[in-house]
């Protein structure tokens, strides 16, 4: 009788998963959240979000819907570096650009790998990811590499493998940003079990993805991290930037817990990977 019993348990699990999946597809993740209560961080009333997390999607290629596409250098790299297809993470599919900004986005994409032969070009052209510049928010979340949430009772540090980027999230008070920066200024709060982070004071140099989607220094991002299972956070970010968009808009994606027993943050210190791209022309141009 052992075998049939086990089988029926497995079947029940499969059915339950199917029900949940259908339910989510129909009603959104809010429903799952209602049924899941994350464990508390010792000594606090708040959910314990500590761990190493990673997005599993192609948003870093393009946050809008996109078909598969070849790498920028198919003759050198073949299939490696090609863009996977993705349905996008923008609610409603499209980013509400002002007309000039849509044209700028297209130009960004066309010149995304233009060699920065002058300081001015370096400041204004090219995908900052190619240059290993700090990725900004929200791109750091889905740039493809793991990140660690370090949540203490009074504060949260998010540490990203990409470029060893970091951001401090102030939970216990609201200090003012002393200046604009690449990763911005993060003030956190709890909305029930959802971690809400209000991000301001970002500079205008970071992008949303490799497709050239961009913002200005007026960008205001409100992120929401909601635990929906022991292994998943639902991530949402509302983006507001009256200089570039006609309306606020929203992205949404699950984040996955890395559950390997030996998981630990590793290094992706990419400065040295970027230097020939950034400075190579200075040497080649005049230093024959």
């Amino acid at each position, binding site marked *: 009788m052992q075998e049939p019993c086990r089988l029926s348990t497995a079947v029940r699990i499969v059915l339950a998963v199917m029900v949940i999946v259908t339910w989510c597809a129909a009603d959104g993740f809010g429903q799952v959240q209602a049924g899941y209560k994350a464990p508390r961080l010792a000594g606090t009333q708040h959910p314990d979000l500590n761990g190493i997390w990673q997005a599993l999607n192609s948003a870093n290629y393009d946050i809008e819907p996109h078909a598969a596409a070849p790498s920028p250098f198919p003759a050198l790299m073949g299939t490696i570096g090609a863009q996977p297809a993705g349905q996008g993470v923008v609610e409603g599919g499209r980013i509400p650009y002002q007309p000039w900004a849509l044209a700028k986005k297209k130009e960004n994409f066309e010149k995304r790998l233009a060699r920065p032969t002058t300081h001015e070009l370096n400041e204004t052209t090219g995908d900052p990811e190619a240059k290993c510049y*700090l990725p900004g928010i929200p791109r750091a979340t889905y740039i493809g590499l793991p990140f660690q949430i370090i949540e*203490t009772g009074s504060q949260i540090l998010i540490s990203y493998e990409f470029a060893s980027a*970091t951001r401090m999230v102030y939970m216990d008070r609201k200090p003012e940003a002393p200046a604009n920066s690449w990763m911005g200024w993060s003030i956190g709060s709890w909305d029930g079990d959802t971690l809400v982070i209000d991000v301001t004071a970002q500079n205008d140099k970071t992008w949303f993805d490799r497709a050239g989607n961009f913002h200005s220094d007026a960008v205001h991002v409100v992120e929401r991290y909601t635990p929906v299972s022991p292994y998943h956070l639902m991530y949402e970010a509302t983006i507001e930037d009256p200089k570039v968009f006609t309306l606020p808009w929203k992205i949404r994606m699950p984040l996955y817990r890395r559950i390997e027993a030996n998981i630990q943050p590793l*290094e992706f210190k990419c400065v040295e990977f970027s*230097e020939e791209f950034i*400075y190579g022309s200075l*040497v080649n141009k005049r*230093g024959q």
Partner: protein
Amino acid sequence: MSHRFFERICSLLPAAALLTLSAQVPAAGQQPAPKAGQPAANAPARFTVPRTAWGDPDLQGVYTFATLTPFQRPAAQAGKDVLSEEEQKALEEQLKKKQEENIATNEHFSYNALWFASDEGRPTGRTSIIIDPEDGRLPPMTEQAQKLRAEMQAKTAAKRIGKDQLVDTWEDISLYNRCVSRPMPRVTQEYNQGVQILQTPGFVTIFYESMHDVRSIPLDGRPHLDSSMRLWNGDSRGHWEGDTLVVDWTNFSDRQKSDGSAPFGGLPQGNMHVTERFRKANANTLDYIVTVEDPTVWTRPFTFYLPWRGDDPTYLGPDDLFEYACHEGNYRMMENSITAAQAVRAKAEKK
């Protein structure tokens, strides 16, 4: 250095004021006995280290490791390991004056006072940060390391025309100035010595403002990374010995070559093995004791002691650690350095 010696240093340090330490460390005979009236007798009561909600000793806080004490003992102070209070005060004033003079006279070629404003570094009371060997100086280098160092110096010298050190490519600039990485362990730095310790169940995290580096140190006893995996900041494993966090630190990269920003000789770090000990000495001080072993570079291990201070007015809270974007602002430096080298070479060829 014997194991017992190190254990003795560590057991003494947290229990007593720093000046007391020097009076009790075995002095190998040649050092003057501690003078009467030194504060050994008034050692403060042992500090009760607070606990986290899950029971670990709580080391959390924002600290600075800025200090005016030199890494190695200056020749003028040979044979003397601690300073009297008056000597310490005089040294502090002298060093601050020198720093102010440097800033005042170097307006075009140095950082201005803003960069150094945070460095209210105080002397530790000792004449050097190194506490072992007993002469407060780095041990002799191995022959192999001396040879390598000479080769590296010759390579640098070959890129010099007159007074100009030429930068033909970005690779002629130090890893630190390229913002690739800054050597560990962090000891002497001119600015941005802010550091924060955060604790979560199973991890201790050290966040260094400089180079926005984060070390997430697992406490679960897992083995080190495979030896083929070499990291700029190495691989750390921690455990508690009483109130002391002990971190075993390996898997450094041979490509990590410390430059002037770290006093470790500017040599590849691939064989370096570091043992760190962290312990709260009092509410505002975290004792940091580090032993460095690297038989390819040093003929014997050495140990340094550097208190991290939690009461520096510039590093009181986490918002005093600001984003250290570095590589992001390097284009002009590279452009100027490379084109300057090209101009110098062109001029030299004409002659």
